[in-house]
């Protein structure tokens, strides 16, 4: 059955000119993937944000001052996936059929080597056991297994939603999923439709077309990780900042 199955390369194009920094995607991501509210002592480094929107600034004086927002998530590297190559537990895998870099938190021993290896700082460690405020546990997503203290987790393109799409296809007797059924939570939540998601291996797909446009680029492209998350902007300063060292995005301004 699945022998000759189609090879997909799921990816996305994030239009930075459309992102208003509202943070809807971050909320939708946490709700979809059972990420609990951060504990009081959590910091940006120790909290868990599979998807995080950074604010960057061009640093110019008043009339010329401009702000942009850069959503950062696992870039789903396809070439020598840095986190997968260093994991001593085989807890990370670059899935051959979908291109999704998949994390198995139940296998993770918590060494955090993958976090050190990840050039995009998109991996997060559970410093505390998850606690949901009373009543909120009713909103947990049964399609996603919660994680425990001591393991690393990250964005996996909402694989719970991927499973649901697969189920729906199987129920209808189809092996291939309908692309319309597989839409990650952040993509569905974005009010400005800044994120285009789809199969990069499908030449007819919107995401493939947009990723090939000259305005599209990838973060830290010189590392040749063949990441599957593209960004696009027509603003030169945003592109220069985003293509540079990651610290520029994290600190919100151009360095030097």
């Amino acid at each position, binding site marked *: *059955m*699945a*022998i000759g*199955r189609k090879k997909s390369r799921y990816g996305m194009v994030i239009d930075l000119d459309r992102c208003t920094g509202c943070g809807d995607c971050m909320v939708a991501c946490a709700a979809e993937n059972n990420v609990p509210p951060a504990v009081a002592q959590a910091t940006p480094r120790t909290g868990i944000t599979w998807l995080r929107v950074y604010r960057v600034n061009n640093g110019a004086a008043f009339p010329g001052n401009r702000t942009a927002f850069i959503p950062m998530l696992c870039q789903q590297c396809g070439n020598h996936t840095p986190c997968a190559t260093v994991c001593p537990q085989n807890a990370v*895998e670059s*899935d*051959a*059929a*979908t291109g*999704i870099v*998949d994390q*198995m*938190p*139940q296998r993770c021993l918590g060494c955090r080597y993958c976090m050190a290896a990840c050039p995009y700082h998109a991996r997060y460690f559970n410093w505390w056991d998850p606690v949901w405020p009373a009543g909120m546990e009713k909103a947990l997503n049964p*399609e*996603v*297994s*919660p994680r425990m203290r001591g393991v690393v987790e990250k964005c*996996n393109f909402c*694989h*719970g939603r*991927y*499973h*649901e799409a*697969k*189920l*729906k*296809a*199987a*129920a*209808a*007797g189809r*092996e291939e999923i309908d692309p319309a059924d597989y839409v990650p939570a952040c993509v569905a939540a974005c009010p400005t439709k800044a994120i285009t998601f789809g199969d990069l291996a499908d030449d007819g797909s919107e995401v493939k077309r947009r990723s090939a446009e000259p305005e599209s680029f990838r973060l830290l492209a010189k590392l040749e990780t063949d990441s599957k998350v593209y960004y696009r902007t027509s603003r030169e300063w945003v592109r220069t900042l985003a293509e540079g060292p990651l610290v520029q995005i994290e600190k919100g301004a151009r360095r030097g």
Partner: protein
Amino acid sequence: MLRGPIWFAAGFAVMLSAGWLVFPRALYQKSSQPIQFSHRTHAEKAGMKCEDCHSLRADGAFTGIPQVDKCAGCHAAPVGSTADEKLLVDRYVTPNREIPWKVYARQPDNAWFPHAYHVKLAKLACEQCHGGHGKTDSLRAYESNRVSGYSRDFWGASLQPATARTGLKMSQCEHCHDEKGVVTGCIDCHK
């Protein structure tokens, strides 16, 4: 002069029996199902098929064990005169309360098993995995592992020899997938 070897043999026997006989029994906690249920009676006397109660929904989700309103369809009043029949009607059907079945086949939270794939695409018969479960007269005691809380085995399974009661292991999933040439990554079965 023989005291040393005798003590050694005695200690060896004690530890061996503790490891082989006592521990495997102590590890599991036995409990009975809330009421007895005969798959055979339902299949033979009522002429029902597996999918009459255990079906796939349109979105591909498996319904598992039916809810009590399904039972109420036939058992609004006791059918027959057994004590369990009376219990079913009085305790569950009349007050419309769900029966707290203990599910032998329940898997850990991070395992994702799509019945739709196995039944619709691979066209496996129920018996291929669940063995003779559908022909049994009564429900066996449920044995849960005191450490993990999971069922000792997935009862009725023909995936493994009847004597191997070790629970369903990932290697058993992989074995069958290998035999049928089904390629899967982690993401295909884990959530």
